[in-house]
């Protein structure tokens, strides 16, 4: 149990707006970046970030410190993103975004196609173009560093599905990034 976290949560729960702003300034960049990469859209990430902090403001009085505030907020952000993505898939009937989508055509390159000094901008753009399902698994595993077991638990999928989604994401990214350097 982290007592500075509990103290900050207590102040927020009592309506201390300075404390709430401190909480926001500390955690918003990480959550926003996660949301941006999971949704692939700045506007959606901004809306979701606002919603998460609104939700946090309502629930902070009940924070008991079972996890750190960062973990508590992160979990809330992931769930918010997943709800959003499920809604988006339903609305748009995007079969390409489901967790069981078909195999992608894989490049049969005999030599590496991605430059060693890959541009971060190119990589961010390519990640944003991935289908929702494999983008989520890739972001949580390769970018955020969660193990497949943790990704599977967060997404409510099997560990094997997490692995295959990350694999698909890597092949798709490889294909997209090879196109950018040709």
């Amino acid at each position: 149990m982290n007592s500075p976290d509990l103290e900050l949560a207590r102040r927020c729960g009592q309506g201390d707006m300075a404390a709430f702003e401190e909480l926001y300034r500390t955690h918003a960049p990480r959550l926003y970046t996660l949301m941006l990469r999971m949704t692939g859209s700045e506007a959606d990430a901004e809306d979701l970030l606002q919603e998460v902090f609104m939700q946090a403001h309502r629930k902070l009085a009940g924070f008991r410190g079972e996890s750190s505030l960062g973990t508590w907020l992160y979990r809330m952000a992931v769930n918010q993103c997943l709800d959003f993505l499920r809604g988006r898939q339903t609305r748009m009937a995007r079969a390409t975004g489901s967790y069981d989508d078909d195999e992608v055509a894989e490049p049969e390159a005999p030599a590496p196609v991605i430059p060693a000094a890959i541009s971060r901008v190119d990589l961010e753009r390519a990640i944003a173009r991935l289908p929702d399902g494999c983008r989520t698994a890739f972001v949580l595993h390769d970018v955020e560093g969660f193990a497949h077991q943790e990704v599977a638990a967060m997404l409510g999928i099997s560990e094997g599905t997490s692995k295959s989604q990350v694999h698909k994401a890597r092949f798709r990214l490889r294909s997209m990034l090879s196109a950018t350097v040709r």
Partner: protein
Amino acid sequence: MTCFEYDLQIDEYVEGTLPATRVAALEAHLATCSRCRAAAADFRTLRSAASTLERRNPPPEVWTRVVASIHESSEQTGWFSWMLPGLTWRSAVAAAVIVIMLTVGTWFSWHEAATAGRVVSTAGLDTASAESRGVEQAMRTQISDMEKTVRTASAVLPSETQAAYQQAGAVIDDALSRRASEPHSEVTQQSLLELLQSKLRLLQEMIALINEMRKGNQEEAARIVSGIEQ
């Protein structure tokens, strides 16, 4: 084994989680297969680059929107009571007006950021748009009635309160007229409704104040503005 069968093993190999008993066989395959060797090299590059991607800061408008939303949702439960503790009702009016002006002022930048580069689909929005316009019309009618009330009775308010009210009202009206000149979309319509809500809140506060001032009840006037429930 075929290359296809080795594919998932390449992922685990790159991640360092492939069981030791399989590493030798995979490495033997990689030594002879340029396709799988290339994939392994690219996966390593991707993994390394992905783990070093930088964080991005959200636009400052998001914090303003969070504060405005909290204010809106907490107003009924006395949000002002902790935001403005100990203020006199006159300074509380000024603070409330500043909050409204800040909200309206930042609306422009967020609205621009939200609409720039975003393609808003209008498919399927017709029904929602019609409902939204109905709400807009009802709010405008209510605002018009309340403005008449405030106009005829505002003499009871101190001059600085009247000036603050006029100034905040002008900022909101200006934002509303700018909105009217923009192409219609779901985002701009939502922003318009938020502006109308701000105007309604301002008018409600003014009318409540006027009522208490007429009664000569300055304590109640202070309580209305600050939201302090005694």
